[in-house]
Structure formats: structure tokens, C-alpha cells
């Protein structure tokens, strides 16, 4: 058990000691600020086009990098964390399947559209209760702190569930906008463990985020809505919540959403691989579950190859029928949104 816990720490320790990343702090801060301003500029200038291109280029690869990152943080033996990971993986599987079944049942006329908000509210409630359960389990694992310090998760989950039942569609839209910010939280946790001296600079950079969002709101609050006369543009504006927030310019909604998405992609594709680089991304030895004698290197290699094939398949699908592939991608991508919760909790 101790060994398994040690293995988990080794990944962080070697990331800290390894000198392969010669990225100075100033360059790191400059990169963050530059990326943020460039994303905000492009998202406000050409929101629809920028959204189309970024999803095409980065949606698949960022999922691959995320999978690899999670595999690097997965212990060889779960030990005391067995219940936590059981609940985590069962929840990811169940919630993904139910999420995918919602539109499937709708399109096969198993229920009418009038029941859609109730189904959505039910799914959101299960999600919240699952996260609360994970927080509580994580709190019970940590011996240093009283588990009652983590009990707040339940009242918080119930309160959010209550709000969710009042306006399920708006709650789901909130998840769409908040999910990109989770990547910034991952980066914070990663820096805390590997480059704590960079944290103050990173936190100062984070202050730019609300300023840029307020700037976008100020610029596009009264802008005319985007012309969503074709299927793709309509999908992009609907994804950003144009029909739910009909009083808000869809230009503003799409710009803010694309800007946040771009930050999300930037963290997973650039920032975390640069900081946590411990060898080639193809090197399986950097993954504890593949390196350890009791590990499963073939399974890890197969998972990475299959997911890489899916990335190529996604690109192929985008080039054949962009709009349909986009719909399928954003339905299936809920799995990576869900997977972030347990791994983020493991890092706290």
C-alpha cells in the first residue's frame, strides 16, 4: 500500500527534479499573457471561424494529452483509494452512458421534448451527487484533516441540485462555460507541486481572465447577434447558449465561450506538457502503470494507440461532415469532462 502511494508521488518528484524543462518563469508568464490576449482578440474578431478551426485542430489532441496526463497520475495499486476509484470509474461510465442515451432516446421518440428539462435536471443531480460523494471519500482518505471538514460537499451539492431543478438548461449551460476553467485549476495544482515558485506569477496572470471577459462583455454587449443562417453557425451559437439567453448578443456568447475553450486547449496542449515534460510523449516509461513491474504496459500502450486512432478518426470525420462530427464529439466528450473531477480531487 505504501509502495503504491510512493509510486504516485514519484511522478511528481521526478517532474520537479528533472531538468528537461528549461522554461524560465518570465517566459512562462509571457506565454500565458500572450496566449490569453491572442485568444481574446481572435475570439472577438472572428468568433464563428475561430471556433470552427480550434475545435477541428485541438479538440481531439487535447483529449489525448488529457488521457496521457491522467494515466501518469494513476497509481499502480489503488490501496486505500480503491473505493474512491471504484466510485470514480463507475460514475464516469454510468454518467457518460446516460448522457449519450438522452439524445438517443429523444431522437427515437421514446419521450417528448417536454420532458427534456426534467431528464436534464435528473442527470445534473446525479452528476452533483457523484462529485459530492467523491469529495467526501477523498476527505475520509486524508488522515491529516477531519473528514467533517469535507462534509460541506453534501449541502453544497444539494443547494446546487436545487438551483439545477429550477433551471436545468441554464445549469447545463453553466457547465459548458465553467468546464474550460477546470484546466486552469489543474495547472494551479500542477504548479503547486512542481513549480511552487511560479504560483504567485500564475495567480497574477489569472487576474487577467475576468478583466478580459469583462472587456469582451463591454465590447459586444450591444453588438448585433451573429448570422446563424447555416447549420454549423446555428450549432455554434446554440452551444454557447444563444437560445437560452435570447436577450444577450450571440456574438458576445460565442466570443466568450471560444476564448475560454482556447485557454482550456492551451493549458492541456502547451502549458502542462511543457512544465511536466519528462521525456518523449511516446515514452511509456514516464507512466508509472507502464513502468512498474506490476504494471500493465501493454494495456497502457493499447489505450494510447486506440485514443490516437480516435483523434485521427475525428479529424477524418471533421473533414467529411464537420457539423455532424462536432455534434457527436461534444456528446462523447462528456467523458473527459467527468474524468477531470476525480483526478483534480486527487491533486488537492
Amino acid at each position, binding site marked *: 500500500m505504501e509502495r503504491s502511494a510512493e509510486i504516485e508521488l514519484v511522478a511528481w518528484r521526478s517532474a520537479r527534479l528533472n531538468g528537461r524543462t528549461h522554461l524560465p518563469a518570465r517566459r512562462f508568464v509571457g506565454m500565458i499573457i500572450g496566449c490569453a490576449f491572442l485568444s481574446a482578440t481572435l475570439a472577438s474578431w472572428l468568433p464563428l471561424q475561430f471556433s470552427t478551426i480550434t475545435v477541428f485542430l485541438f479538440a481531439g489532441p487535447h483529449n489525448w494529452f488529457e488521457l496521457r496526463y491522467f494515466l501518469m497520475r494513476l497509481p499502480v495499486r489503488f490501496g486505500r483509494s480503491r473505493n474512491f476509484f471504484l466510485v470514480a470509474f463507475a460514475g464516469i461510465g454510468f454518467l457518460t452512458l446516460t448522457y449519450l442515451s438522452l439524445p438517443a432516446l429523444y431522437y427515437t421518440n421514446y419521450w417528448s421534448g417536454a420532458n427534456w428539462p426534467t431528464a436534464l435536471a435528473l442527470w445534473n443531480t446525479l452528476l452533483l451527487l457523484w462529485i459530492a460523494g467523491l469529495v467526501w471519500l477523498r476527505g475520509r482518505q486524508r488522515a491529516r484533516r477531519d473528514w*467533517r*471538514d469535507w*462534509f*460541506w460537499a*453534501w*449541502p453544497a451539492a444539494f443547494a446546487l*441540485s*436545487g*438551483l439545477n*431543478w429550477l433551471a436545468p438548461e441554464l445549469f447545463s449551460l453553466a457547465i459548458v462555460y465553467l468546464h474550460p476553467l477546470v484546466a486552469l485549476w489543474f495547472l494551479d495544482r500542477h504548479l503547486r507541486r512542481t513549480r511552487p515558485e511560479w504560483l504567485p506569477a500564475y495567480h497574477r496572470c489569472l487576474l487577467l481572465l475576468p478583466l478580459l471577459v469583462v472587456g469582451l462583455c463591454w465590447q459586444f454587449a450591444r453588438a448585433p447577434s451573429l448570422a446563424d443562417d447555416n447549420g454549423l453557425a446555428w450549432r455554434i451559437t446554440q452551444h454557447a447558449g444563444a437560445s437560452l439567453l435570447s436577450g444577450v448578443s450571440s456574438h458576445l456568447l460565442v466570443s466568450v465561450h471560444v476564448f475560454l475553450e482556447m485557454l482550456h486547449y492551451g493549458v492541456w496542449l502547451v502549458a502542462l506538457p511543457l512544465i511536466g515534460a519528462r521525456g518523449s510523449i511516446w515514452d511509456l516509461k514516464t507512466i508509472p502503470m507502464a513502468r512498474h513491474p506490476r504494471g500493465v504496459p501493454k494495456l497502457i500502450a493499447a489505450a494510447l494507440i486506440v485514443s490516437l486512432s480516435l483523434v485521427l478518426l475525428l479529424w477524418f470525420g471533421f473533414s467529411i461532415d464537420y457539423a455532424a462530427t462536432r455534434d457527436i464529439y461534444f456528446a462523447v466528450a462528456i467523458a473527459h469532462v467527468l474524468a477531470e473531477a476525480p483526478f483534480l480531487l486527487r491533486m488537492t
Partner: protein
Amino acid sequence: MDFQFEQVEIFCAILRGILAQSEDPMKRTLICCSAVFVTFATAAFIFADIARPKPSPAKVQEGKIVFHTGLTIAPQGDAAYEARLQISQESLKNLQAALASAQAGSPSTGQRIAQSSTRTIIAGLFLFLSVSFAGVWLARSASRRSHKAIAAVLLVVAVVSAAVIITRANAGPPGYVRWAGLPKALSEGRPTSGGLDIEIVPEGSGMTLIIPIRKNNNSKGEE
């Protein structure tokens, strides 16, 4: 109904017995919360005993306000032969959007919540659970710091709520105040501006402009 009172008495007796047996305050708190929950559930159940209301006659179709804008009534002398309604491009565009939304029948968020009683009940239940669990957590939490933090949050919420209530006093005067001087302004040939709700009514033809003019205008008190 006697049968239900009997049930409640039995329930209370059982509860008293359970509370007397349990020494752990946590258990007592949980039992009390459960009892309150059961009472609420029973109340909802008993509500079914109230006689069903008599079906009301078919509602008279009422108008629906779809858009709020401004209106200026400007008298014109000999130059005009017909009353004219001038609408700016921007207002027309907004009006078209509002009319399209009204025809589509998409309800607002508030209407959606009000129309779904089941969802509202479930939301209330979850908020009740949240408050209950938060209370248990607060009672069981040993940390004084968390008590202080929660007290600070509650204080901030109270201050913000009070500020919201107070600042509502800064809301503008009622709409009819702006129209109070219309007769005099018309007689003097001056324009008068005020707010305007565009209401779609199911019957009639043409357009009707309804101006709120109070005969006993307490202008001193309102101003």
C-alpha cells in the same frame, strides 16, 4: 380525518421512544430532520384531502405585454393632416424580435419555473436538504475558523440583501407620473415623453393608445 390524527399520534409516540433511547446528539439531530421531512411529506399527502376546486369558467383571453419602449406624443399644428406613428429602425428591429419571440411562445425562465410545479417541489426539497445538512455540518464542525467564515458569509449575504432592498427605493417613479402633464402639454403644443408597454390584445382592430392620467394626482407625495 380522525384516522389521520390517530396516525400522527402514533408517529409522535414512536418518535418520542426513539429519541429517548438514542443518547448520541448526532443521531437525535438526524432523527429530528427525518421527522421533519416525514411531516412535510405527510402534509403534502394530506393536502389531497382538500376538496378539489370547482372548475372555473373559461378564462377571458387577456392581453400580453411583449415589449417595453418609450413614446413621445408631439402635437403638430397646421402642417399635419393625419396622425403619424414614427418608429426608429432600432425600435422596429427590437419590436420584431419581441413579436417573433411572443409568437413562438417561448416562455421566460421565470415562467418555466412557475409552470413546472414538480421541478419546483424537487428544487425545494433539495434546498431543504441543503439547509439541513449545512446545519448538521455547522453543528458538528469543530473548527471555530469555519464558524467565523460561515458567520462572515451570512453577514455578507444579509448586508447585500439589505442593500438590494434599500436600493430598490432608487427605482424611478411610476409611469403615470410622466403622463400627468399630457393634457396641459397638448393644449400648449409641447411634446410629452414617457414609457410605453406594447400589448397584443386578442380582439379589436387597429391600435389603441391608453394613457394613464390620474384625476387626483398626488404629485407632491410622489415627487
